[in-house]
């Protein structure tokens, strides 16, 4: 371990001091390359314990689901641009705050319906920012999407609607939802702004239907709201029988190459593919698309015939890697499986080898699982997905052997074991090893930082007749899914005892660093604290995580993500926790790190997500170093 850390520590120490100001944090991932790198040097391992709360804001836009409103989940990255901090909320409002004090400058209410139309909760991942470079009203804009498929454009200075955008500042994106009417295009993820184009995907409920709206990428004129082009991911011939393969998460882009990199999700339904046995090459892929034309330049499918809901869950991270004296324009795609694909972002060629390996066959009616899947061994995957964790002795003992019995009862033949009527262990779980938080990278060193979950689930295909009697339909990331039109509904649950204890050995989540030049893993350490009934787990157990890390030039990583509702600063060199603070709910968002009026801030949104635990909030907290 010590040996492995040497190059990392040396690289961090030798890195030349930069102009240490982060004057923008204007996309979901901080920048278009999704580095989540903040060029601020003031936060260091030596002083980060001196962080203090600069301000705290409660937006008021929160629901725990006990009243008339559905629960909220909130993972908005605060956007710092135009000397202002912009936030989208799960009630589909925009708040513009003073970055130094948190005081509200203006707010905008989209008046969107507060119904959980496609999701089990009211959900928002923030807003997008665009500026034309000219002066005048609406030359700087903030965009907000809604659950009911509207994209709102407002002036960044005043919060007034931009009338020249679509219909009085509101674009009805559902006008392009013409194939079928299963659900509206929910705009929960803000568009990715590339030049003067808004790259727009959508979310739906692909667990509910076999035939669903086919996934597409829409390029929208940032000024007018006009559709520039539209790229479909499902082959025409298969559109009558399947759907989705949509983009529900963030994207990255390389304006110099003129490419946007899109993470495409799995086709519908999620866990049975007998309706879509013909290849869908762009599904569950990372695909490079020409920004101007919408033409696919290259695509790498990361799961073939995805029947595990292993959507490509996050924007790829773009970084130049130095190898053998050459600079390689690389793209790093983290995945729900834990594999880390490192590709040449110009050509799509793998930088580290991708192996085709045989995987288990399906025994479900009509299903034809892919006989092979792509495996990436370098860099090593997070949390070793090749073998599911052993039975946890403590949980097994207190459950009188329930865990051992279930281990023998359900099917497991390694990663990519297909869902079955018997029940199949799903490891990594459907929320992944990695999810929408993706990775961060220090572009000076080529060191990649990733938080990762280690959760085992059980998925069971339920024959239609039996499913109708159960009459399930939670529509959440765990529970019963109807998969209408398929011969099976499904039940998906975490592998726990009747008392709720995890049946698998910890850790439940880790934090890792990788040297992208060599593919070497520098460390993988338990991260965060798990929590059950209020009781915290041990440090070595770690926590499942949602949300992503930000690495700073001073060698500090900022991250929320854990279920114990703490935000943390880690030593980038070792992953050691340096500082933490308790917030009101798990901070499942990516923090924003920026310099405002000469002062460096880190801002966390603590919104919570039911995947981790049913604790929600509307809290925004800004930290800065204590005044000397």
């Amino acid at each position, binding site marked *: 371990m010590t040996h492995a850390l040497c190059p990392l520590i040396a690289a961090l120490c030798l890195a030349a001091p930069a102009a240490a100001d982060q004057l923008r944090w204007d996309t979901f991932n901080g920048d278009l390359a999704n580095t989540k790198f903040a060029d601020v040097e003031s936060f260091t391992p030596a002083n980060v314990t001196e962080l203090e709360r600069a301000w705290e804001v409660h937006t008021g836009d929160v629901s725990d689901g006990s009243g008339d409103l559905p629960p909220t989940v909130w993972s908005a990255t605060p956007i710092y641009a135009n000397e202002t901090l912009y936030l989208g909320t799960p009630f589909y409002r925009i708040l513009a705050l003073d970055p130094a004090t948190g005081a509200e400058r203006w707010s905008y209410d989209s008046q969107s319906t507060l119904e959980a139309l496609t999701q089990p909760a009211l959900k928002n991942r923030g807003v997008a920012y665009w500026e034309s470079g000219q002066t005048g009203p609406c030359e700087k804009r903030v965009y907000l999407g809604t659950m009911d498929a509207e994209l709102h454009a407002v002036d960044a200075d005043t919060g007034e609607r931009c009338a020249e955008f679509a219909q009085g500042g509101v674009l009805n994106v559902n006008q392009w939802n013409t194939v079928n009417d299963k659900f509206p295009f929910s705009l929960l993820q803000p568009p990715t702004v590339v030049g003067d184009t808004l790259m727009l995907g959508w979310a739906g409920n692909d667990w509910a239907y076999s035939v669903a709206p086919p996934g597409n990428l829409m390029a929208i004129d940032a000024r007018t709201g006009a559709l520039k082009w539209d790229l479909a991911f499902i082959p025409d011939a298969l559109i009558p029988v399947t759907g989705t393969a949509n983009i529900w998460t963030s994207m990255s882009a390389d304006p110099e190459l003129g490419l946007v990199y899109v993470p495409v999700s799995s086709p519908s339904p999620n866990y049975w593919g007998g309706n879509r046995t013909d290849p869908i090459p762009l599904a569950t892929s990372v695909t490079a698309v020409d920004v101007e034309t919408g033409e696919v330049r290259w695509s790498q499918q990361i799961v073939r015939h995805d029947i595990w809901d292993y959507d490509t869950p996050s924007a790829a991270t773009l970084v130049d890697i130095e190898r053998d004296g050459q600079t390689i324009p690389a793209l790093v795609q983290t995945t729900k499986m834990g594999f880390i694909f490192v590709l040449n972002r110009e050509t799509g060629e793998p930088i580290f080898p991708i192996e085709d390996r045989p995987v288990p066959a399906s025994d479900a009616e009509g299903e034809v699982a892919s006989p092979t899947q792509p495996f990436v061994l370098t860099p090593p995957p997070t949390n070793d997905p090749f073998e599911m964790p052993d039975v946890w002795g403590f949980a097994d003992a207190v459950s009188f052997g329930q865990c051992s019995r279930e281990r023998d009862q359900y099917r497991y033949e390694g990663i990519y074991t297909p869902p079955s009527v018997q029940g199949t262990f799903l490891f990594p779980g459907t929320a992944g090893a990695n999810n929408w938080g993706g990775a961060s990278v220090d572009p000076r060193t080529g060191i990649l930082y990733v938080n990762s979950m280690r959760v085992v689930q059980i998925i069971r295909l339920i024959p239609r007749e039996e499913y109708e009697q159960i009459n399930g339909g939670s529509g959440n990331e765990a529970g019963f899914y109807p998969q209408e039109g398929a011969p099976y509904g499904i039940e998906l649950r975490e592998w726990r005892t009747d008392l709720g204890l995890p049946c698998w050995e910890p850790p439940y989540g880790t934090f890792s660093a990788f040297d992208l030049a060599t593919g070497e893993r520098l460390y993988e350490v338990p991260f965060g604290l798990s929590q*059950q*009934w*209020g*009781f*915290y787990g041990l440090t070595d157990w770690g926590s499942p995580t949602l949300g992503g890390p930000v690495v700073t030039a001073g060698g500090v990583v900022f991250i929320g993500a854990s279920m*114990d*509702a*703490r935000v943390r600063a880690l030593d980038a060199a070792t992953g050691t926790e340096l500082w933490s603070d*308790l917030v*009101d709910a798990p901070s499942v968002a990516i923090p924003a790190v920026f310099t405002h009026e000469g002062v460096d801030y880190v801002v966390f949104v603590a919104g919570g997500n039911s995947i981790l635990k049913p604790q929600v909030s509307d809290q925004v907290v800004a930290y800065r170093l204590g005044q000397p």
Partner: protein
Amino acid sequence: MRKRHFPVIVLGAIGIALAAYAYISSDTGVAGTTGALLALIGAVAVTAGSFLAAFARLDGFLFGTLAFLIALGAVLTALAGYFLMQYVLAIVMALAFAGLLVAVFLPAPQRRQI
């Protein structure tokens, strides 16, 4: 009346206050959780048991059983406090346990013969 149990009663009462704060206050990280509620119930049980031990006339067996239950309650509540990251509660309940041991096992002072 067994005055030696008074410190355990006081510590239990402090434990009740701390556990109630943990259960109610949003800045503890465990507000409204089952674990915090169990800790509160544990602290109440220890306090009530100690009160009974101090003031009720109990024979040897009943007293021994009660003392054992109070000790168990104090240890479990201390453990709960530890895993709830309510360390002051954990320390207070550990002290209550120690106080109980003193009350039960320390020999009674000899009365001076006149």
